[in-house]
Protein backbone atom coordinates (compact mmCIF):
# COMPACT_ATOMS: atom_id res chain seq x y z
CA UNK A 1 0.00 0.00 0.00
CA UNK A 2 2.86 2.34 0.73
CA UNK A 3 4.63 3.97 -2.14
CA UNK A 4 8.27 4.89 -2.17
CA UNK A 5 9.64 8.28 -3.01
CA UNK A 6 13.17 8.89 -4.20
CA UNK A 7 15.73 9.47 -1.51
CA UNK A 8 16.49 13.02 -0.57
CA UNK A 9 18.88 14.96 1.55
CA UNK A 10 17.47 17.67 3.75
CA UNK A 11 19.13 20.77 5.10
CA UNK A 12 19.60 21.56 8.78
CA UNK A 13 16.63 22.60 10.87
CA UNK A 14 15.39 26.12 11.02
CA UNK A 15 14.54 27.83 14.25
CA UNK A 16 14.25 31.17 15.99
CA UNK A 17 17.89 31.09 17.06
CA UNK A 18 19.17 30.30 13.62
CA UNK A 19 19.24 32.30 10.46
CA UNK A 20 16.58 31.33 7.99
CA UNK A 21 17.08 30.92 4.32
CA UNK A 22 14.20 33.24 3.60
CA UNK A 23 11.05 32.36 1.74
CA UNK A 24 12.94 30.62 -0.99
CA UNK A 25 13.42 27.25 0.64
CA UNK A 26 9.85 26.10 0.79
CA UNK A 27 9.32 27.38 -2.73
CA UNK A 28 12.44 25.54 -3.80
CA UNK A 29 11.38 22.32 -2.10
CA UNK A 30 7.84 22.60 -3.33
CA UNK A 31 9.14 23.04 -6.84
CA UNK A 32 11.55 20.15 -6.45
CA UNK A 33 8.80 17.93 -5.10
CA UNK A 34 6.60 18.82 -8.02
CA UNK A 35 9.23 17.64 -10.47
CA UNK A 36 9.86 14.35 -8.72
CA UNK A 37 10.56 14.81 -5.01
CA UNK A 38 14.30 15.02 -5.27
CA UNK A 39 15.93 17.56 -3.03
CA UNK A 40 19.65 17.89 -3.37
CA UNK A 41 21.85 19.24 -0.61
CA UNK A 42 24.43 21.64 -2.01
CA UNK A 43 23.49 25.30 -1.73
CA UNK A 44 20.39 24.63 0.30
CA UNK A 45 22.48 22.91 2.94
CA UNK A 46 24.78 25.88 3.37
CA UNK A 47 21.92 28.31 3.44
CA UNK A 48 20.27 26.47 6.28
CA UNK A 49 21.99 27.35 9.50
CA UNK A 50 24.49 29.79 10.89
CA UNK A 51 25.59 27.23 13.44
CA UNK A 52 26.04 24.52 10.88
CA UNK A 53 28.03 26.80 8.64
CA UNK A 54 30.28 27.83 11.51
CA UNK A 55 30.89 24.25 12.55
CA UNK A 56 31.34 22.94 9.06
CA UNK A 57 29.13 20.12 7.89
CA UNK A 58 26.87 19.17 10.82
CA UNK A 59 26.49 15.45 11.50
CA UNK A 60 23.63 13.95 9.57
CA UNK A 61 22.05 10.52 9.38
CA UNK A 62 20.08 8.56 6.81
CA UNK A 63 16.67 7.49 8.02
CA UNK A 64 13.76 5.63 6.41
CA UNK A 65 10.29 6.19 7.74
CA UNK A 66 6.73 5.99 6.49
CA UNK A 67 4.72 9.19 6.43
CA UNK A 68 1.01 8.85 5.72
CA UNK A 69 1.60 5.55 3.95
CA UNK A 70 4.47 6.78 1.81
CA UNK A 71 7.95 5.45 2.46
CA UNK A 72 10.52 8.24 2.71
CA UNK A 73 14.26 7.88 2.89
CA UNK A 74 16.00 11.09 3.82
CA UNK A 75 19.35 12.20 5.13
CA UNK A 76 18.69 14.62 7.94
CA UNK A 77 20.87 16.91 9.98
CA UNK A 78 20.70 15.20 13.38
CA UNK A 79 19.12 18.31 14.90
CA UNK A 80 16.03 18.15 12.70
CA UNK A 81 12.81 17.64 14.60
CA UNK A 82 10.06 15.52 13.10
CA UNK A 83 8.01 18.72 12.90
CA UNK A 84 10.65 20.48 10.81
CA UNK A 85 11.12 17.40 8.65
CA UNK A 86 7.40 17.40 7.92
CA UNK A 87 6.94 21.12 7.44
CA UNK A 88 10.16 22.28 5.89
CA UNK A 89 11.25 19.26 3.92
CA UNK A 90 8.27 17.06 3.13
CA UNK A 91 5.93 19.99 2.48
CA UNK A 92 3.41 18.72 5.01
CA UNK A 93 2.57 22.00 6.70
CA UNK A 94 -0.62 20.83 8.40
CA UNK A 95 1.24 20.13 11.64
CA UNK A 96 1.83 23.50 13.27
CA UNK A 97 4.70 24.99 15.22
CA UNK A 98 3.28 26.76 18.24
CA UNK A 99 5.68 26.76 21.19
CA UNK A 100 8.30 24.36 19.77
CA UNK A 101 8.78 23.14 23.37
CA UNK A 102 6.12 20.49 23.95
CA UNK A 103 3.75 22.78 25.81
CA UNK A 104 1.02 23.63 23.27
CA UNK A 105 0.26 20.47 21.29
CA UNK A 106 -0.09 22.20 17.89
CA UNK A 107 2.51 19.82 16.45
CA UNK A 108 0.80 16.60 17.60
CA UNK A 109 1.12 13.65 15.21
CA UNK A 110 0.88 9.89 15.61
CA UNK A 111 4.11 7.88 15.64
CA UNK A 112 3.43 4.15 15.47
CA UNK A 113 -0.15 4.92 16.45
CA UNK A 114 0.71 6.98 19.53
CA UNK A 115 0.18 10.71 19.80
CA UNK A 116 3.43 12.60 20.43
CA UNK A 117 4.80 16.14 20.20
CA UNK A 118 6.64 16.17 16.88
CA UNK A 119 8.60 19.27 17.94
CA UNK A 120 10.37 17.23 20.66
CA UNK A 121 10.93 14.20 18.43
CA UNK A 122 14.26 14.02 16.66
CA UNK A 123 13.66 12.81 13.10
CA UNK A 124 16.87 10.82 13.21
CA UNK A 125 15.31 8.49 15.82
CA UNK A 126 12.44 7.43 13.56
CA UNK A 127 14.07 4.63 11.57
CA UNK A 128 11.24 2.32 10.50
CA UNK A 129 8.54 4.40 12.18
CA UNK A 130 5.05 5.01 10.84
CA UNK A 131 4.02 8.63 11.08
CA UNK A 132 0.47 9.88 10.56
CA UNK A 133 -0.18 13.59 10.22
CA UNK A 134 -3.39 15.54 9.72
CA UNK A 135 -2.82 15.19 5.96
CA UNK A 136 -3.00 11.42 6.26
CA UNK A 137 -6.24 11.19 8.20
CA UNK A 138 -8.87 11.46 5.48
CA UNK A 139 -9.56 8.58 3.11
CA UNK A 140 -9.54 10.34 -0.23
CA UNK A 141 -12.37 12.83 -0.13
CA UNK A 142 -13.92 11.25 2.93
CA UNK A 143 -12.94 13.09 6.09
CA UNK A 144 -12.03 11.22 9.25
CA UNK A 145 -15.08 11.25 11.56
CA UNK A 146 -13.28 13.55 14.00
CA UNK A 147 -12.45 16.02 11.23
CA UNK A 148 -16.12 16.03 10.26
CA UNK A 149 -17.14 16.45 13.90
CA UNK A 150 -14.91 19.52 14.25
CA UNK A 151 -16.74 21.06 11.30
CA UNK A 152 -20.18 20.01 12.54
CA UNK A 153 -19.50 21.34 16.03
CA UNK A 154 -17.73 24.47 14.79
CA UNK A 155 -14.87 23.50 17.12
CA UNK A 156 -12.38 26.15 16.03
CA UNK A 157 -12.01 29.82 15.22
CA UNK A 158 -8.56 30.69 13.92
CA UNK A 159 -7.77 27.04 13.23
CA UNK A 160 -4.09 27.11 14.14
CA UNK A 161 -4.35 24.52 16.90
CA UNK A 162 -6.91 22.40 15.01
CA UNK A 163 -4.61 19.87 13.29
CA UNK A 164 -2.95 19.16 16.64
CA UNK A 165 -6.31 19.01 18.42
CA UNK A 166 -7.63 16.52 15.90
CA UNK A 167 -4.55 14.30 15.97
CA UNK A 168 -4.58 14.40 19.76
CA UNK A 169 -8.31 13.64 19.74
CA UNK A 170 -7.71 10.62 17.51
CA UNK A 171 -5.15 9.40 20.05
CA UNK A 172 -7.46 10.16 22.96
CA UNK A 173 -10.30 8.14 21.39
CA UNK A 174 -7.97 5.22 20.60
CA UNK A 175 -6.71 5.22 24.17
CA UNK A 176 -10.28 5.13 25.43
CA UNK A 177 -10.03 8.22 27.61
CA UNK A 178 -13.41 9.52 26.54
CA UNK A 179 -15.73 8.29 29.26
CA UNK A 180 -16.83 11.75 30.36
CA UNK A 181 -16.31 15.37 29.32
CA UNK A 182 -14.05 15.71 32.38
CA UNK A 183 -11.88 12.81 31.27
CA UNK A 184 -11.66 14.18 27.73
CA UNK A 185 -10.64 17.57 29.11
CA UNK A 186 -7.90 16.02 31.21
CA UNK A 187 -6.57 13.85 28.38
CA UNK A 188 -6.74 16.69 25.85
CA UNK A 189 -4.99 19.12 28.19
CA UNK A 190 -1.78 18.96 26.18
CA UNK A 191 -3.50 20.90 23.40
CA UNK A 192 -3.96 24.59 24.00
CA UNK A 193 -6.57 26.61 22.07
CA UNK A 194 -5.99 30.35 22.10
CA UNK A 195 -9.51 30.99 20.82
CA UNK A 196 -11.01 29.08 23.73
CA UNK A 197 -13.04 26.55 21.74
CA UNK A 198 -12.65 23.90 24.41
CA UNK A 199 -16.36 23.22 24.98
CA UNK A 200 -16.88 22.41 21.31
CA UNK A 201 -13.62 20.49 20.99
CA UNK A 202 -14.66 18.28 23.88
CA UNK A 203 -18.06 17.79 22.27
CA UNK A 204 -16.51 16.81 18.93
CA UNK A 205 -14.25 14.23 20.60
CA UNK A 206 -17.10 12.92 22.74
CA UNK A 207 -19.46 12.49 19.79
CA UNK A 208 -16.85 10.83 17.61
CA UNK A 209 -15.97 8.41 20.40
CA UNK A 210 -19.65 7.59 20.92
CA UNK A 211 -20.11 6.75 17.23
CA UNK A 212 -17.23 4.26 17.21
Amino acid sequence: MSSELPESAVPPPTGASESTSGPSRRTFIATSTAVGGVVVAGGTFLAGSEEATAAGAAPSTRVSLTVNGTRRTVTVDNRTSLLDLLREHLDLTGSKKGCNAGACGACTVLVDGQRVNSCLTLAVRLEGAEVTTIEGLAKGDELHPLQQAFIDEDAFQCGYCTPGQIMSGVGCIQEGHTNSPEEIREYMSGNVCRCGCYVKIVRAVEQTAARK
Partner: protein
Amino acid sequence: MYPFAYTRVNSVREALDAGRRGGRYIAGGTTLVDLMRETVETPETVVDISALPLRDITATAGGGIRIGALVPMSVATADPKLNSLYPVAAQALRGASAQLRNMATIGGNIMQRTRCTYFRDVTADCNKRDPGSGCAALHGYNRGHAILGGSDHCVAVHASDFAVALTALEATVHLQAPDGKERSLPFADFLLRPGSTPQREQNIRQGELITAVEIPALPRPLKSAYLKIRDRQSYSFGLASAAVALHVRGGVIREAKVAAGGVATVPWKLSAVERALIGERPSDRLWAEAASHAVDGARPLQHNRFKVELLKRTVERQLRTVGEME
Protein backbone atom coordinates in the same frame (compact mmCIF):
# COMPACT_ATOMS: atom_id res chain seq x y z
CA MET B 1 20.69 23.75 18.78
CA TYR B 2 24.32 22.83 18.31
CA PRO B 3 25.36 19.95 16.06
CA PHE B 4 25.74 16.55 17.70
CA ALA B 5 26.63 13.04 16.66
CA TYR B 6 23.87 10.47 16.95
CA THR B 7 24.20 6.80 17.68
CA ARG B 8 21.63 4.13 18.34
CA VAL B 9 22.53 1.20 20.59
CA ASN B 10 20.90 -2.20 20.79
CA SER B 11 22.21 -3.59 24.05
CA VAL B 12 23.08 -2.38 27.52
CA ARG B 13 26.71 -3.29 26.79
CA GLU B 14 26.80 -1.05 23.71
CA ALA B 15 25.09 1.74 25.64
CA LEU B 16 27.61 1.59 28.47
CA ASP B 17 30.50 1.65 25.98
CA ALA B 18 29.05 4.77 24.37
CA GLY B 19 28.35 6.26 27.79
CA ARG B 20 31.91 5.70 28.94
CA ARG B 21 33.12 7.69 25.94
CA GLY B 22 30.99 10.61 27.10
CA GLY B 23 27.81 9.98 25.11
CA ARG B 24 24.60 11.39 26.51
CA TYR B 25 21.73 8.91 26.81
CA ILE B 26 18.42 9.86 25.26
CA ALA B 27 15.20 7.99 26.05
CA GLY B 28 11.94 9.92 25.57
CA GLY B 29 13.90 13.09 24.90
CA THR B 30 11.17 15.40 26.16
CA THR B 31 13.53 17.27 28.48
CA LEU B 32 16.81 16.80 26.62
CA VAL B 33 15.68 17.91 23.15
CA ASP B 34 13.89 20.90 24.64
CA LEU B 35 17.00 21.99 26.55
CA MET B 36 19.30 21.30 23.59
CA ARG B 37 17.17 23.64 21.53
CA GLU B 38 17.56 26.30 24.23
CA THR B 39 21.33 25.54 24.18
CA VAL B 40 21.16 24.79 27.90
CA GLU B 41 22.26 21.25 27.06
CA THR B 42 25.04 20.85 24.50
CA PRO B 43 25.92 17.16 24.22
CA GLU B 44 28.47 16.24 21.57
CA THR B 45 27.09 12.74 21.19
CA VAL B 46 23.55 11.58 21.81
CA VAL B 47 23.10 7.86 22.45
CA ASP B 48 19.64 6.55 21.67
CA ILE B 49 18.82 3.85 24.24
CA SER B 50 15.17 3.35 23.33
CA ALA B 51 15.83 -0.16 21.95
CA LEU B 52 17.23 -1.50 25.23
CA PRO B 53 15.27 -4.22 27.05
CA LEU B 54 14.37 -2.11 30.08
CA ARG B 55 10.61 -2.06 29.60
CA ASP B 56 9.32 -4.54 32.16
CA ILE B 57 7.16 -3.89 35.20
CA THR B 58 7.56 -6.79 37.60
CA ALA B 59 6.33 -7.67 41.05
CA THR B 60 9.28 -8.36 43.35
CA ALA B 61 9.47 -11.38 45.63
CA GLY B 62 8.82 -9.36 48.77
CA GLY B 63 5.69 -7.72 47.41
CA GLY B 64 7.18 -4.58 45.92
CA ILE B 65 7.36 -3.54 42.30
CA ARG B 66 10.22 -2.92 39.88
CA ILE B 67 9.74 -0.60 36.92
CA GLY B 68 12.19 -0.67 34.02
CA ALA B 69 13.86 2.63 33.16
CA LEU B 70 12.42 2.70 29.64
CA VAL B 71 8.78 2.07 30.57
CA PRO B 72 6.86 5.04 29.16
CA MET B 73 4.96 7.13 31.71
CA SER B 74 1.70 6.33 29.90
CA VAL B 75 2.31 2.58 30.33
CA ALA B 76 3.37 2.81 33.97
CA THR B 77 0.43 4.98 34.99
CA ALA B 78 -2.02 2.50 33.48
CA ASP B 79 -0.31 -0.59 34.89
CA PRO B 80 -2.76 -2.66 36.96
CA LYS B 81 -0.08 -3.81 39.43
CA LEU B 82 1.15 -0.29 40.11
CA ASN B 83 -2.42 0.97 40.47
CA SER B 84 -3.37 -1.72 42.93
CA LEU B 85 -0.16 -1.66 45.00
CA TYR B 86 0.76 2.04 44.91
CA PRO B 87 -2.00 4.30 43.58
CA VAL B 88 0.06 7.27 44.79
CA ALA B 89 2.82 6.41 42.29
CA ALA B 90 0.42 5.75 39.40
CA GLN B 91 -1.37 9.04 40.05
CA ALA B 92 1.89 10.98 40.27
CA LEU B 93 2.60 9.93 36.67
CA ARG B 94 -0.44 11.79 35.37
CA GLY B 95 1.01 15.27 35.59
CA ALA B 96 2.24 15.73 32.04
CA SER B 97 0.15 15.85 28.87
CA ALA B 98 -0.88 12.61 27.17
CA GLN B 99 1.58 13.27 24.33
CA LEU B 100 4.49 13.73 26.72
CA ARG B 101 3.51 10.66 28.73
CA ASN B 102 3.64 8.57 25.55
CA MET B 103 7.19 9.74 24.94
CA ALA B 104 8.72 10.22 28.39
CA THR B 105 10.14 7.30 30.37
CA ILE B 106 10.51 6.43 34.05
CA GLY B 107 14.30 6.82 33.94
CA GLY B 108 14.04 10.12 32.10
CA ASN B 109 11.40 11.36 34.51
CA ILE B 110 13.74 11.15 37.46
CA MET B 111 16.58 12.68 35.39
CA GLN B 112 14.46 15.64 34.28
CA ARG B 113 15.85 19.05 35.01
CA THR B 114 14.29 22.02 36.73
CA ARG B 115 11.75 24.29 35.04
CA CYS B 116 13.31 27.39 36.63
CA THR B 117 12.99 30.03 33.89
CA TYR B 118 16.42 31.46 34.69
CA PHE B 119 17.97 28.03 34.20
CA ARG B 120 16.28 27.75 30.82
CA ASP B 121 17.31 31.27 29.76
CA VAL B 122 20.97 31.19 28.73
CA THR B 123 21.24 34.98 29.09
CA ALA B 124 20.39 34.82 32.83
CA ASP B 125 22.78 34.11 35.70
CA CYS B 126 22.38 30.55 36.88
CA ASN B 127 24.77 28.54 39.03
CA LYS B 128 23.17 25.30 37.93
CA ARG B 129 23.80 25.97 34.24
CA ASP B 130 26.92 28.10 34.58
CA PRO B 131 28.57 27.51 37.99
CA GLY B 132 29.75 30.70 39.65
CA SER B 133 27.58 33.04 37.58
CA GLY B 134 25.10 33.66 40.40
CA CYS B 135 21.42 32.93 40.91
CA ALA B 136 18.99 35.27 39.18
CA ALA B 137 16.05 33.69 40.99
CA LEU B 138 17.15 34.64 44.51
CA HIS B 139 16.29 38.28 43.90
CA GLY B 140 14.28 37.86 40.73
CA TYR B 141 10.76 36.61 40.18
CA ASN B 142 10.71 33.56 42.41
CA ARG B 143 7.02 32.73 42.82
CA GLY B 144 7.56 29.15 41.65
CA HIS B 145 10.77 28.51 43.54
CA ALA B 146 11.69 26.47 46.58
CA ILE B 147 10.90 27.27 50.20
CA LEU B 148 12.76 24.15 51.36
CA GLY B 149 16.17 22.71 50.56
CA GLY B 150 17.52 25.81 48.85
CA SER B 151 20.93 27.42 49.27
CA ASP B 152 22.52 30.77 48.51
CA HIS B 153 23.47 29.24 45.17
CA CYS B 154 20.19 27.80 43.94
CA VAL B 155 16.49 27.68 44.82
CA ALA B 156 15.20 25.84 41.75
CA VAL B 157 12.39 23.35 42.34
CA HIS B 158 12.66 19.74 41.24
CA ALA B 159 9.88 19.28 38.70
CA SER B 160 9.03 15.57 38.88
CA ASP B 161 5.80 14.41 40.54
CA PHE B 162 6.74 10.75 40.24
CA ALA B 163 9.93 11.44 42.20
CA VAL B 164 7.79 12.74 45.05
CA ALA B 165 5.95 9.42 45.24
CA LEU B 166 9.26 7.51 45.02
CA THR B 167 10.61 9.63 47.86
CA ALA B 168 7.57 9.03 50.04
CA LEU B 169 7.66 5.27 49.39
CA GLU B 170 11.44 5.07 49.92
CA ALA B 171 12.18 3.59 46.52
CA THR B 172 15.52 2.37 45.22
CA VAL B 173 17.28 3.31 41.97
CA HIS B 174 19.17 0.58 40.12
CA LEU B 175 22.16 1.68 38.07
CA GLN B 176 24.75 -0.01 35.91
CA ALA B 177 28.23 1.43 35.41
CA PRO B 178 30.36 1.26 32.24
CA ASP B 179 32.53 -1.43 33.87
CA GLY B 180 29.38 -3.54 34.17
CA LYS B 181 29.06 -3.16 37.94
CA GLU B 182 25.54 -2.71 39.21
CA ARG B 183 24.66 -0.64 42.22
CA SER B 184 21.47 0.40 43.93
CA LEU B 185 20.90 3.41 46.06
CA PRO B 186 18.00 4.82 48.06
CA PHE B 187 16.07 7.33 46.03
CA ALA B 188 16.62 9.87 48.80
CA ASP B 189 20.36 9.69 48.03
CA PHE B 190 19.91 9.79 44.25
CA LEU B 191 18.74 13.37 43.89
CA LEU B 192 21.08 15.95 45.37
CA ARG B 193 20.28 19.20 47.13
CA PRO B 194 22.00 22.16 45.46
CA GLY B 195 24.29 23.24 48.33
CA SER B 196 27.28 24.94 46.74
CA THR B 197 27.24 22.64 43.69
CA PRO B 198 23.80 23.04 42.09
CA GLN B 199 25.20 21.79 38.79
CA ARG B 200 25.36 18.32 40.35
CA GLU B 201 21.78 17.11 40.48
CA GLN B 202 22.01 13.34 40.63
CA ASN B 203 24.27 10.88 42.34
CA ILE B 204 25.27 9.34 39.04
CA ARG B 205 28.67 8.83 37.44
CA GLN B 206 29.71 9.30 33.85
CA GLY B 207 28.27 6.61 31.65
CA GLU B 208 26.12 5.11 34.37
CA LEU B 209 22.76 3.93 33.15
CA ILE B 210 19.55 3.81 35.16
CA THR B 211 18.09 0.35 34.63
CA ALA B 212 15.07 0.41 36.96
CA VAL B 213 13.40 1.94 39.98
CA GLU B 214 12.03 -0.31 42.68
CA ILE B 215 9.35 0.43 45.23
CA PRO B 216 9.76 -1.79 48.31
CA ALA B 217 7.04 -3.84 49.91
CA LEU B 218 5.08 -1.99 52.56
CA PRO B 219 2.70 -3.34 55.19
CA ARG B 220 -0.79 -4.10 53.88
CA PRO B 221 -3.44 -2.83 53.64
CA LEU B 222 -1.90 0.38 52.40
CA LYS B 223 -3.99 3.40 51.46
CA SER B 224 -2.24 5.94 49.24
CA ALA B 225 -2.91 8.88 46.93
CA TYR B 226 -1.26 11.93 45.34
CA LEU B 227 -2.55 15.49 45.41
CA LYS B 228 -1.14 18.24 43.22
CA ILE B 229 -2.07 21.90 43.49
CA ARG B 230 -1.33 24.01 40.42
CA ASP B 231 -2.33 27.24 38.72
CA ARG B 232 -4.68 25.45 36.33
CA GLN B 233 -6.65 22.26 36.57
CA SER B 234 -4.38 20.03 34.52
CA TYR B 235 -1.06 19.85 32.67
CA SER B 236 0.92 22.26 34.76
CA PHE B 237 3.84 22.05 37.13
CA GLY B 238 2.86 21.88 40.78
CA LEU B 239 2.94 24.74 43.26
CA ALA B 240 2.61 22.23 46.07
CA SER B 241 1.90 18.52 46.10
CA ALA B 242 1.65 15.72 48.62
CA ALA B 243 2.26 11.99 48.31
CA VAL B 244 0.71 10.11 51.22
CA ALA B 245 0.59 6.40 52.10
CA LEU B 246 -0.87 5.11 55.36
CA HIS B 247 -1.11 1.70 56.96
CA VAL B 248 -3.83 1.70 59.61
CA ARG B 249 -4.57 -1.36 61.74
CA GLY B 250 -6.78 -1.62 64.80
CA GLY B 251 -7.71 2.05 64.44
CA VAL B 252 -4.08 3.13 64.83
CA ILE B 253 -1.69 4.47 62.17
CA ARG B 254 1.16 1.93 62.10
CA GLU B 255 3.06 3.24 59.09
CA ALA B 256 3.08 6.62 57.35
CA LYS B 257 4.98 7.61 54.20
CA VAL B 258 4.71 11.27 53.27
CA ALA B 259 6.58 13.57 50.88
CA ALA B 260 5.96 16.94 49.26
CA GLY B 261 6.69 18.35 45.80
CA GLY B 262 6.64 21.73 44.09
CA VAL B 263 8.13 23.40 47.15
CA ALA B 264 11.68 22.12 47.43
CA THR B 265 14.91 21.69 45.50
CA VAL B 266 14.47 17.93 45.71
CA PRO B 267 11.34 15.89 46.49
CA TRP B 268 10.87 16.60 50.18
CA LYS B 269 10.49 13.72 52.60
CA LEU B 270 8.28 14.84 55.50
CA SER B 271 9.81 12.73 58.26
CA ALA B 272 8.48 14.97 61.05
CA VAL B 273 4.96 14.59 59.67
CA GLU B 274 5.39 10.81 59.53
CA ARG B 275 6.61 10.71 63.13
CA ALA B 276 3.64 12.79 64.28
CA LEU B 277 1.25 10.27 62.68
CA ILE B 278 2.69 6.92 63.69
CA GLY B 279 1.02 5.41 66.75
CA GLU B 280 -1.87 7.88 66.66
CA ARG B 281 -5.56 7.46 65.94
CA PRO B 282 -6.87 9.27 62.84
CA SER B 283 -8.69 12.52 63.60
CA ASP B 284 -9.06 15.99 62.12
CA ARG B 285 -6.94 17.32 64.95
CA LEU B 286 -4.18 14.84 64.11
CA TRP B 287 -4.12 15.72 60.38
CA ALA B 288 -3.75 19.42 61.18
CA GLU B 289 -1.16 18.89 63.89
CA ALA B 290 0.95 16.54 61.75
CA ALA B 291 0.70 18.77 58.66
CA SER B 292 2.00 21.75 60.61
CA HIS B 293 5.40 20.02 60.62
CA ALA B 294 5.48 20.01 56.79
CA VAL B 295 6.93 23.51 56.77
CA ASP B 296 9.58 22.96 59.43
CA GLY B 297 12.64 24.91 58.31
CA ALA B 298 10.85 26.65 55.42
CA ARG B 299 12.62 29.73 54.06
CA PRO B 300 10.27 31.54 51.71
CA LEU B 301 11.50 34.05 49.14
CA GLN B 302 10.00 37.38 48.14
CA HIS B 303 7.28 36.05 45.84
CA ASN B 304 6.52 32.60 47.23
CA ARG B 305 5.43 33.19 50.84
CA PHE B 306 2.06 31.75 49.93
CA LYS B 307 3.68 28.34 49.52
CA VAL B 308 4.17 27.99 53.28
CA GLU B 309 0.44 28.01 54.01
CA LEU B 310 -0.35 26.24 50.74
CA LEU B 311 1.98 23.35 51.58
CA LYS B 312 0.56 22.96 55.08
CA ARG B 313 -3.01 22.86 53.76
CA THR B 314 -2.11 20.55 50.86
CA VAL B 315 -0.56 18.03 53.24
CA GLU B 316 -3.41 18.32 55.75
CA ARG B 317 -6.02 17.81 53.06
CA GLN B 318 -4.23 14.80 51.62
CA LEU B 319 -3.68 13.21 55.03
CA ARG B 320 -7.40 13.51 55.66
CA THR B 321 -8.31 12.23 52.17
CA VAL B 322 -6.11 9.15 52.52
CA GLY B 323 -6.94 8.67 56.19
CA GLU B 324 -10.66 8.58 55.44
CA MET B 325 -10.36 6.15 52.50
CA GLU B 326 -12.08 2.81 53.00
